[in-house]
């Protein structure tokens, strides 16, 4: 009988405690809501300098996202057709396939042009060297032009 009474009392206490706890929670929530309402009101009234700074920060972040998304799209396009070198090789290959004769003519022409240029430069160089040799020699240039000079040199 006594045990039953004790249990009843405990249950009553627990119910009271639960009631107090829930009412405390409600009061806490209410206070928090009141405080937050005032804080939100305050947050809306910031200085124009702070407002400008926040706007600039927001624009920076949005621009960054735009850049990243554009970069991602271009990377995706390249990845679809293989890597960059593959893309270049494929396009260059297509060009040579379609313009085979033109390409061969261009390559041969470039080789011939290079050959003649080298030849021309080499001939001029030799000519300049021989003129310089004659002018700087101990003997006068007439000595090399005279056919009888060699014969005279042999006899002496």
């Amino acid at each position, binding site marked *: 009988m006594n045990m039953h009474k004790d249990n009843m009392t405990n249950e009553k206490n627990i119910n009271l405690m639960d009631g107090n706890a829930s009412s405390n929670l409600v009061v*806490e929530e209410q206070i928090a809501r009141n*405080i937050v309402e005032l804080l939100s009101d305050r*947050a*809306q009234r910031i200085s124009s300098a702070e407002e400008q700074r*926040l706007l600039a*920060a927001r624009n*920076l972040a949005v621009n960054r996202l735009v850049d*990243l998304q554009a970069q991602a799209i271009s990377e995706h396009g390249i990845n679809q057709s293989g890597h960059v070198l593959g893309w270049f090789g494929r396009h260059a290959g297509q060009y040579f396939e379609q313009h085979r004769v033109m390409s061969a003519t261009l390559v041969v022409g470039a080789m011939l042009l290079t050959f003649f240029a080298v030849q021309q430069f080499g001939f001029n160089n030799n000519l300049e060297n021989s003129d310089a040799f004659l002018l700087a020699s101990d003997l006068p240039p007439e000595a090399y032009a005279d056919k009888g000079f060699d014969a005279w040199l042999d006899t002496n």
Partner: protein
Amino acid sequence: MATPKELSDFLAAVERRAFKQTAYAVRDDHAALDIVQDAMMKLAEKYGDHPAGEFPMLFQRILQNTMRDFWRRQKVRNLWTTLLSSFGGNDADGEDRDPLETIDVEDDSDEPSAQLARSQTIRLIERALEKLPARQREAFVLRYWEEMDVAETAKIMGCSDGSVKTHCSRAVHALAIELKKQGLDKLGLSSAIFSK
């Protein structure tokens, strides 16, 4: 993937609250603006490919982490400053330092005497919020100001649901006591809690 417009709209909606929350935490408006900008950039760079619905939680987590980084840097800087000042002696500094500069005066000069009671109430609340321990303030702001549920708040704070409830409850009680000290119970903020 979120569009730039969605990101812009989201940031426009939260930036003022984020700035004030950070300012209460770091007590420096310029540092608070830097922290908010860092958080915005990190959100765009690292989570721009996430859906816009995930932005509130991600942004709050980034903001809280950026604040923690700020505190860490401040701690290291303060340590070095203390070490260097103690190493260099304080004779020369002592002459230059004006003790009046270090006193925490109440800056009411920008508030006109005829300002509404509401503005004064807000200022008192801001000061009370600044005095809260960091974890209690974080829980209060996330749970009530950002209107996140207990589980979301716990996830951002990296603690259990029970800890969030405890931090929130303590924060509200501490605020109530602090505001009562300031005579704010007479302003009808909440007579119920003050009468307890």
